[in-house]
């Protein structure tokens, strides 16, 4: 919810703040990072295979299900019952990691595979946050 704070004015007051008329809503990270709230979910990156494009273990991933999936987009997919984050090569139907030690995975018809959404933002947590500590375990 967005609230513009209006302070209670007591009977005795000094001068009104010259900036009072210019008061606006503060900046909201939600507004900046989440384009389509109904279609977006937040996940926790776990593993090292995407470090090459800057996704590290413990990063927050913002995933938008409504976005068109372009070739070589960074996506989250259901790959055999597990959420994975990879780059999608549409021409070769491959999931590509951003790391030398993880070879590309070719998707076959026997695989259970659905694209869940496009990773639109990555958030790195530098200082630990209490709320997130538990899920980092």
């Amino acid at each position: 919810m967005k609230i513009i704070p209006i302070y209670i004015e007591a009977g005795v007051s000094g001068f009104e703040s010259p900036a009072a008329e210019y008061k606006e809503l503060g900046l909201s990270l939600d507004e900046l990072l989440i384009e389509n709230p109904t279609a977006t979910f937040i996940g926790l990156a776990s593993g090292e295979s995407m470090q090459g494009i800057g996704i590290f273990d413990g990063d927050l991933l913002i995933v938008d299900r409504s976005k068109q999936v372009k070739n070589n987009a960074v996506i989250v997919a259901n790959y055999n019952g597990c959420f994975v984050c990879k780059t999608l090569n549409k021409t070769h139907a491959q999931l590509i990691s951003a790391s030398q030690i993880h070879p590309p995975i070719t998707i076959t018809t026997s695989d259970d595979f659905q694209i869940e959404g496009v990773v639109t933002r990555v958030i790195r947590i530098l200082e630990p946050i209490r709320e997130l500590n538990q899920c980092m375990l």
Partner: protein
Amino acid sequence: MYALVDATSFYASAEKVFDPSIRHKPVVVLTNNDGCICAVCPIAKKLNIPKFGPYFKIKHYLAKHNVVIRSSNYELYADLSERMMNVAARFCDNQHIYSIDECFLHFKQFTKLVDNWHDYGYQIRKVVWRETRLPVGVGIANTPTLAKAANHAAKKLPGYNGVAVIDTEQSRKSILAQMNVSDVWGIGSRLSKKLMVMGVNTALELANQCPKQMRKQFSVVVERTINELNGIVCLSWDDVKEPKQEIFSTRSFGQRVTDYNALKSALTSHVNIVARKLRKQNSLAKKLYIFAHSSQYQDNYYKQSVIVQFPQATNNTLVMANAVTSALPSIFRQGVLFYKCGVGAIELESNRYRQPDMFSPDLNNESLMQCFDMINSRYGQGTLSMATESKQHSWQMKRHFLSPSYTTKWSDIPRISC
């Protein structure tokens, strides 16, 4: 035009959204306290799992078929419901949310933009699926009752595949003829039995009755339903949301209760919920129904109920809590393992047309209750409560198979392998 959009086995489908490992498995969801099965996913339906059956009775059958069992995760369902409703609302001028998993869409200006309702229905279904991963059925017609019938056809009749449109006389007759009268929106089970005795078995046969005559024989509601089945709009959203005639709050205990004060505390909490709901719809109750019983599946089944009549109709939590205190000695019995209890406000009347009593003092104390409600709605339910409601709810919900709150708790967000 109207559409009814509803999710297929909503609770079970919601469990699959953030857990891809169970998408192709049979899933059932249990009610409060893991008592009964309240949702069965389409895969589990093929195993003939009965809905609303007690869980413990078919526990072994479920285990044998590797059925995934989940407790009701209301935090998750509320969030996914909101997303689904928001997506559906984009497609119409007006939306009326009817329950957690269904909404009516009303098309006025939008009608001009749509040339094929069938395609439009599929588009709604596709977009809701893409953005929320919830499967929905869509029924479209020119009255709410027919939209509901079309939705029934979309999900139950072969060949419809999740979308059905009633836009011609032919489609109306064909769908209504294949529908039991008991499946018509607004026709309850008791009423449908009477209709069946009269030889009215299908929705089409009901539609062909004379509305005026049916009004005399039954009620104005039946007349309206018949008109709606014939394409005449009679319902507006206000009719759909009439104040409730009875308000109940009941629940089975997480663990059996044998203690007098524990039972009192549980009943007082139910009173608190009921009184709050009464005030919300501006009603007063003349009577309070209070009951408690042991498990029907165990020996020495014990059930006791009391109806307390108030000197004047009330929605005051304190007055209603006192009713519990006075009634409890005749309900409680030493040695009984109480399994479930609850209270119900019955014989409601509107607070607006209240007739005060000249001789007895006003018991309602409206300003106190207003203050009580305001504090609780601002700082969270339970901030202010009766002293008899214990803070530690030992009788509260048992949820052994609860999935994480993927979208509402930071510690529960889904993990994505990199």
